[in-house]
């Protein structure tokens, strides 16, 4: 079979081969490859060439503003204690506000018992669940620190994560900082392993690339830092789901930059079942339509737009092209290729798979280049041969999510937000 395939591929003209690879080039992962390579090369050279202007005497003092960590949770008694322990005491001027969003379990007791034995921990409670956004806004009205850090109650912070995430905020033009969100349970089963590799590549290296381009459009709700004055200027979080991406875009529209702190690492629990993964990804993918295609469409207005910024426009183009157009194009292209080469499907798929795998292997080197735990990340990268199938699976979910959002606005029926709130929120 291998001989047949070699003969078949050698008979193809360069144009035909490019046509074969077109579908793959539309998948998310390869799109960053060339950019990643440039950044990697740049960073490698920066490491090799010593900075002569830099010495201890002129190095700026560490940026140490007051920080308030907001932890909003609903029925999170199992994980809240460990999350609080991973945060408390990791920064000198740190205040923690826990918001119990109408939990029916022991979340409030866990928080209050922690607050009783630890300084600068405040616990807020409301009897009725109102959603994550309003819970964070509730806490925001009591935060007095200069920098607000939002952390999910099921996430753990890595060493010095708070210090790392606030350093980019030394620049007054930067109002939000995205962190590297990594899986906490990478080897629970094959699904979490696949997600781990995806997080390492898309979340870590992908966001690094977007941040360098100035088109980073997401500060993850799991771990993100914001300047409090800017949060108050944009009136905090709007109703979710996808409130983290929405807030990031509103901060960008207000004229501020969004930075990325690769060494501010947060470990979050990723879904362990296919059902939960599908639910999560449908929610994420629907947000592209809700926010980039509807709510913040004005970022793309070229005329009569005083707030027009080319970076924001590029951000929209990036999301429209890769997260909407390419999803449909990928399947249209795949169907067309299947019909055209219906008698050579096995050779077609083998070609695409090998091409994708070779690209993925190059990406493995990039992931390892930015790794701070080489052994763990090397094991994670062993799942690479299965990644093409996983990415196609994610594309199917994206296709469903985008279509249902475009046609039926399904995000406004998501249980992420309580019924009484989602019935009243603005429909974009």
């Amino acid at each position: 079979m291998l001989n047949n395939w070699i003969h078949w591929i050698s008979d193809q003209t360069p144009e035909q081969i490019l046509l074969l690879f077109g579908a793959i080039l539309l998948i998310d992962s390869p799109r960053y490859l060339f950019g990643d390579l440039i950044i990697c090369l740049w960073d490698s050279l920066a490491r090799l060439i010593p900075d002569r202007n830099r010495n201890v005497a002129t190095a700026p003092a560490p940026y140490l503003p007051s920080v308030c960590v907001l932890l909003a949770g609903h029925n999170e008694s199992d994980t809240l204690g460990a999350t609080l322990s991973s945060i408390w005491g990791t920064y000198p001027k740190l205040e923690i506000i826990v918001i119990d969003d109408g939990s029916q379990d022991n979340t409030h007791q866990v928080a209050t018992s922690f607050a009783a034995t630890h300084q600068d921990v405040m616990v807020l409670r409301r009897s009725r669940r109102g959603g994550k956004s309003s819970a964070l806004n509730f806490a925001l009205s009591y935060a007095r620190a200069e920098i607000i850090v939002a952390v999910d109650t099921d996430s753990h912070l890595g060493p010095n994560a708070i210090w790392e995430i606030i350093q980019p905020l030394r620049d007054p033009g930067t109002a939000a900082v995205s962190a590297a969100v990594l899986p906490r349970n990478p080897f629970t089963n094959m699904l979490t392993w696949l997600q781990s590799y995806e997080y390492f590549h898309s979340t870590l290296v992908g966001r690094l690339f977007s941040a360098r381009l100035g088109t980073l459009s997401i500060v993850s709700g799991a771990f993100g830092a914001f300047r409090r004055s800017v949060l108050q200027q944009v009136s905090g979080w709007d109703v979710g789901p996808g409130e983290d991406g929405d807030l990031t875009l509103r901060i960008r529209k207000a004229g501020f930059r969004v930075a990325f702190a690769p060494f501010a690492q947060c470990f979050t629990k990723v879904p362990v079942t296919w059902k939960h993964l599908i639910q999560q990804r449908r929610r994420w993918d629907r947000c592209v339509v809700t926010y980039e295609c509807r709510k913040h469409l004005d970022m793309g207005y070229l005329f009569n737009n005083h707030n027009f910024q080319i970076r924001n426009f590029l951000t929209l183009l990036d999301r429209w092209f890769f997260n909407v157009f390419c999803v449909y194009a990928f399947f249209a292209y795949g169907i067309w290729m299947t019909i055209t080469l219906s008698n050579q499907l096995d050779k077609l798929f083998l070609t695409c798979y090998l091409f994708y795998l070779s690209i993925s292997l190059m990406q493995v080197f990039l992931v390892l280049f930015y790794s701070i735990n080489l052994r763990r990340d090397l094991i994670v990268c062993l799942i690479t041969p299965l990644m093409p199938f996983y990415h196609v699976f994610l594309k199917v979910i994206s296709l469903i999510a985008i279509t249902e959002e475009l046609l039926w606005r399904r995000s406004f029926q998501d249980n992420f937000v309580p019924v009484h709130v989602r019935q009243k929120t603005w429909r974009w």
Partner: protein
Amino acid sequence: MTFPVTRTVQTDHSARITPVSERMDRKQELRLSVTIIPVLSDMSPDRSGRVDGYTRSFSHKGVILDLATRQKLTSSVIIALEYQPGHYRHAPLEVQCSTPVTPQHICIEAHYGGVASELFQPTFLRPTLDLQSMRFHFGKHETLLTQWEQVGVLWKKPLDCIQVCNKCGSLPTFRKGCPQCGSGYLLNDRLIHHYSCAHVGPAVDFDTPESISCPKCLVRNLVVGADFEHLTGICRCNRCSWSGQDTVSIAHCLHCGHRDCADQMSHQEIFEYHVEQLDPLDFGPDA
């Protein structure tokens, strides 16, 4: 209810419905074992004068008794009727007349009521709150009630378990207060959560002269419940620097001025006295 002695009822069974006035006057011959406890002038029981006997007849007004004594009884007595083995019911009696029957027996006729009736009043048997000392007590009757308890007419029944001052035992007053300094003067934040835009802010920010409006999305004429909800924010102590949502219950004794957390106060059980009353209607001809 079972009685130890069979009764002989002399009634006209042909009349199905007996008029009430007739029933009240009708006597019923019934021989039941009783104990008579004389009531002294200070309302205390005369333990030494306790007499056993039997009933001769009952009516709704009173009772005729054969008693195994020759001594003269006080005018006010308590009758204890054993309606079940070991269980007694009691009623106050006013002795009308006493007639010797044999050298060892007398026959008395008594009506229900008399000065001993006061012992059976609920107000007499329950403790009252004295506003001077802020304590529950039975006043001057406490010793009297104990004596009646000792002779088996009254028995104690738990009424409640209350928190009292751990210094003086008085009843304290309670309020939500600061867990640090115990002050009850707390300032509470009133916040509003607007559902549409998730904005949470002080209620005063939503107040406009015309209506309630959201300062974030500028929507006007908001309706509570449908568009927004009130949230209870944190409380700020006006005396110390404490702020938070978890206030504690603070007890303050008005008698001695002691102030502490409510859970630090002592617990005290309070009792009332109970009496099993004999109902004359139980022995009526139609009972």
